């Protein structure tokens, strides 16, 4: 599969990827403020029970976000 079409919501625990872009303008502003920048490495850590929200590592700290928000972050892996 083409790596560019993948997003953070599709990652598995322990997987690492590079942020390549965003599919939602409004959310991207907030995500970038939180250090989720194009080119930054993200690691998918774990999910809450029921699979949502999820916890990722980015810019040296841990960030939690909902699955639908994670799905707006495209990654290269």
């Amino acid at each position, binding site marked *: 599969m083409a790596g560019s079409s993948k997003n953070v919501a599709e990652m598995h625990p322990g997987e690492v990827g590079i942020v390549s872009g965003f599919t939602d*303008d*409004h*959310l*991207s*502003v*907030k*995500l*970038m*403020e*939180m*250090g989720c*920048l*194009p080119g930054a*490495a993200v*690691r998918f*850590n*774990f999910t*809450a*029970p*029921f699979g*949502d*929200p999820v*916890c990722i*590592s980015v*810019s*040296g*700290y*841990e*960030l*939690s*976000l*909902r699955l639908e*928000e994670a799905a707006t972050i495209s990654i290269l892996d």
Partner: protein
Amino acid sequence: MTSSRKPKIALVGNPNSGKSSLFNHLTGLNQKIGNFPGVTVEKRTGHSQLPDGTTADIIDLPGIYSIYPRSLDEQIVAEVLLDHHSPSTPDKIVVIVDGTNLKRGFLLLTQIIDMGLPTILALNMMDLAAKAGISYDFNALSKKIGVPVVAINARKGVGLDELKKLMEKPLSPPEKPVFSIWPEVESAVKELRATLNVDNDYEAYQFLEQPKSLKFLGAADQTKVTNIRNKYSFFPGKFQGAETIQRYSFIQDLLNTVTLKASDHSWKKNSSRLDQIVTHKVWGYLIFFALLFLIFQSIFAWAQVPMDLIDTGFAKLSAFLGSVLPEGPLSSLVAEGLIPGIGGIMIFIPQIAILFAFISVLEESGYMARVVFLMDKVMRKFGLNGKSVVPLMSGVACAIPAIMATRTIENWKERTITIFVTPLMSCSARLPVFTILVALIVPDEKAWGFFNLQGLALMGLYLLGFVAALVSAYVMKLLIRVKERSYLIMELPTYRIPKWSNVGYTILEKTKAFVFEAGKVIMAISIILWVLASYGPGDALSKARENVLEESKNLRLTEQGLNDRVAAYKLEHSYAGVIGKGIEPIIRPLGYDWKIGIALITSFAAREVFVGTMATIYSIGSVSDDDAATIKDRMKEEVNPETGGPRFTPATGFSLLVFYTFAMQCMSTIAVVYRETKGWKWPLIQLAYMTTLAYVSAFAVFHLLS
């Protein structure tokens, strides 16, 4: 005198950057909590002694990630930093950045620098950074960004002397902005700066970007800004993403130059391992519910002794004042209105203090963010947010601090729903009412050998309130239609041992907020109620004694018995009694008579007044160590004249219990909701909804059981 010359220093930083610890260290007990004008966001201020002997005013601003606000708390920071020409404009800004995560903290730092107020950078947690093998060249850093840099350890109070020295030194605003405004907006910014007195380009640019943060400007100036915005067809948020990217690229360059040694492992490991358990689908919930159980157990077990002390203390004080003050309306107001009113506020302090001790420990340790993480999915089904858990939990002690805790919820709809349903959680004021009614109608027996029936009934009432809150939230979710997106983008902070002094300050702060916020309303209402209960139409009250004597000629009452009867007679013929009788037709379908009606009215201000009113109506001496037992016995004997049976049948009792579970019956909550939602719409809808719910449910319960 010299207060106008006192330097004003504002603390700004990310959440979890150690800002509160620094504030507590700088100010100690010299802090007070107020409100920012016109809004309900808490303003923590205090003063600090500087090395040269002067005192500085320290303002602790809410934790933010960026100057672009997302919630009400965050908007305040933008407003304070944008308003450069008011008496409350800070003279210096101290930006606190977590030394283990400079990157994200520096986004905020560079924004603050560009706002053009004199800025100091305090690098916190450098000890942890050192442990992780990170070090920076502070001199190079300071030169690059043009602001003084100081390393501190806010938890231990290390480095504060250097910070204070920087605070007292004259400091000019940073010279060069990090970010230059876009060429597209230059003409708009130029015109804005010429029209209004704006210090620099970035500040003017923020005027265009943040129409909601300009309340300090006044209507005329705001219109000018709007006109310029329209003229250049600028819409807020247009360039925000690009700005963030530009800042981060500056920060990356900066970090590349000033980092002497970077951390060798990029992912934190310790927190993750603990999180495997804490957010586990079985263990996670087990731990959370075990903690909840522990908290409630402690609230009820530990608070009992101090509450009893406060209760008897105020009863004695009231009786003492009643006996020593000269007779007259004024001493009656003091002894029967004011003192019990203050007592009614004080009695909740132990429970509130204990609850907030726990909540603050959970927040300080980083666990609360995990609770939000665990509960978000479930709460969302009910139109709430993971962050609604804290207000709902606090609601078990008192709805007032709970409703104030909803400010962190960014989404308007989720916040409004949380505010709306929080008063349905059974607060500590309902407990005395529950206790006495449950003791009256539920037998003190054990079911299946070990479950105490009364305990089960009490637990059932708490559950009932919780279920009602969830169901109401769900209904509101369907009713309110807004196109505002709900999101949860939240840092999971590293676990830490709580700093106990911070816990202490939180307890103090929350208790104070309750005493003063709720206290004012409870006081005012207790005075009104005192008037209603002490005065009545005609001369019935002044002739109370004669009339009672006349009625009970053949009873050979003791002096105490007579006095109690006079008190009951007075209450019956007071305005409160008249209203109680007036509403009897309305409450009769619920199984209540006018006596209960009086109690409903007097307890409208605060639920726990029910018990005291019952004591007066059934003419039990007001001072007795064994009040509850006496009231209970007397209520048991009360006869319903229509049936000849007891007045408090299980049907009436359960009907009352359900009524008190659902009814608003709390003036202070209404007042707080009014302030938090900035209008009468929500408190009135809430009052109508809860009263209707209480009435209909009580009606149903009464008719099902009788």
